[in-house]
């Protein structure tokens, strides 16, 4: 009876059988990496906006406070996107003819809002409130990254649930004294965890990891 398979089949089957384990492991690893990559999460990816607004220019070079534009961040769940009026407080006088700012002036003339593209868009099944985080000492930069250094704005973090839980499970690693919440480039001088633990005591910070805190 003739052989059905070429002798090389032996090697081939051994390699595929033993290699199968590694193939499965590698596939899983790739899938998990892709799921966390900026290709999927859009973290670190610049969003194109109707006007190329630079946080670097306004925050780092001019020193404007976050709250000048994002006015409701301390009282509301939503930090607030400034109306055209806020832009025009300065830009009616400064760079008032710059071509780059024409969409702003057009919005001002017509009364039609600028349509900014939202950079941090949480899914609707997750509830988030800015005011409580700001009040308890979570700095703007803790979540939003070094916004003052972004010429064009990107989202610093993935907004994956594991990222939220990183802080909710160990807030002492992230909280800062309330007076520094809006300070750009703030770094704790001593031991962050020691200071963090004191802050947790002092301000009664007890972030819950109960499902219905965010999924209401």
């Amino acid at each position: 009876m003739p052989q059905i398979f070429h002798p090389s089949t032996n090697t081939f089957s051994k390699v595929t059988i033993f290699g199968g384990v590694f193939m499965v492991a590698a596939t899983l690893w790739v899938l998990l990496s892709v799921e966390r990559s900026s290709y999927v999460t859009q973290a670190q990816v610049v969003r194109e906006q109707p006007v190329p607004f630079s946080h670097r220019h306004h925050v780092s070079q001019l020193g404007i406070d976050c709250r000048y534009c994002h006015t409701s961040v301390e009282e509301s769940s939503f930090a607030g996107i400034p109306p055209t009026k806020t832009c025009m407080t300065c830009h009616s006088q400064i760079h008032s003819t710059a071509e780059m700012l024409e969409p702003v002036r057009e919005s001002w003339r017509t009364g039609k809002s600028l349509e900014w593209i939202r950079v941090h868009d949480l899914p609707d099944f997750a509830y988030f409130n800015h005011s409580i985080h700001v009040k308890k000492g979570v700095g703007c930069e803790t979540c939003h990254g070094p916004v003052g250094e972004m010429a064009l704005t990107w989202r610093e973090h993935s907004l994956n649930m594991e990222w939220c839980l990183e802080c909710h499970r160990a807030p002492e690693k992230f909280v800062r004294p309330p007076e520094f919440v809006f300070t750009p480039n703030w770094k704790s001088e001593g031991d962050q965890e020691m200071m963090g633990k004191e802050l947790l005591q002092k301000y009664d910070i007890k972030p819950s990891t109960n499902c219905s805190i965010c999924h209401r």
Partner: protein
Amino acid sequence: MADQVLDKKEHSHHTGAPLIEPGHSYGSVTDKISSIVLTRKTPVAWFLGFSVAFLLLMVFLGSTAYLLMKGTGIWGLNVPVGWGFAIINFVWWIGIGHAGTLISAILLLLRQEWRTSINRFAEAMTLFAVAAAGMFPLLHMGRPWLFYWLMPYPNTMALWPQFRSPLVWDVFAVSTYATVSLLFWYVGLVPDFATLRDRTKNRWAQISYGILSMGWRGSAIHWHRYETAYLLLAGLATPLVISVHTVVSFDFAMGIIPGWHATIFPPYFVAGAIYAGFAMVLTLSIPLRKIYGLEDFITMRHLKNMAKVMLATGLIVAYGYMIEGFTAWYSGAEYEEFMILNRLTGPYKYVFWSLILCNVAVPQLIWFSKIQNSVVALFVVAMFVNVGMWLERFVIVVTSLHRDFLPSSWDMYSGTIWDWATYIGTIGLFLTLMFLFLRIMPAISIFEMRTLVTDDKKSKAE
């Protein structure tokens, strides 16, 4: 010890019906079983059966497609009966699967040689029943494509499954069971695949069976490794026979629902599973031996033995029903008492009493040797048990839930047309796989049957 085993063998050969009809040789056994797959014309009954099964499979496809479009609202589930057909059918199918592992693993370790001619298709039955069972929790999820959330893996939600939930234990129990059963079945098939590879004239069949037989040449080393692996797998599978349905029973027993929260549940469920499994093996083997003319290999002795196992486990199940009633009375808890009265005399009393008829009354016929010797009667009894075990799960699930602690939320439950379509559809899935298996794989273990031939000659020589 060895002498004792030998004695027993001889004893069984002299008294009971034989395990294999006399006059068979190695060659004739191999010819007969492999010809079903390789040379014999596929019987008309196969085509008829397969068409019906495939039609039902299409019903499953249709009802699943509609379910994915509309969501689980098309099923009859609602408050207070949040668990209906989905769990009933899941438990029913998983239970049916149990006979396969029991026959292949436990009976192997206990050296019950009569298992040899039925273990192969009983194992196939197990696999297909587990596949059918798996459909229900998957579909009940609503978003079945996210099923992998039930597995512990480093996900972006930084969450683990709820390890305190018996439903998560179920995932592990059933997937382990499916894996071990598949391995056991496959390892047992390897020498037979090699036989088919060597006998077929068809090039494609040669290649396919060649790949499946993994280079089996039947050398002494091969046989040595095979025996070791098979015994090890049997050892692994044995605790699974007990553990899987125990965990399934925990789905109920861990809940503080009257009628569920009872310590009798694990043994009672395991016995019920073996009961249902043997009923299904009888249901399948009786037409199988008839259609393919395998009466020489699946003899009356096999049918009788299976019927006896059915009778024994049926009595354990009946004891379980009794204890349920006793516990309810002895507990003195008014909700337990109400539950059992509601079960016996409430709106679902007809279901309950039909269950008693099917599972407790009818199987007592097996005590009579006339029934034991009648193939038709055994088939009818097995069908009663198949139905009875489904009714049992219906009674456990529905009567415990539909009148709960709060009379204002009492309600009646019944399956919708989509519940029935999905259920009947999985029967189609099961039968389709079974028919395909019969067509392309040896339904009876060829090489193990050959060992019975040797024994026969030896005992004659002695």
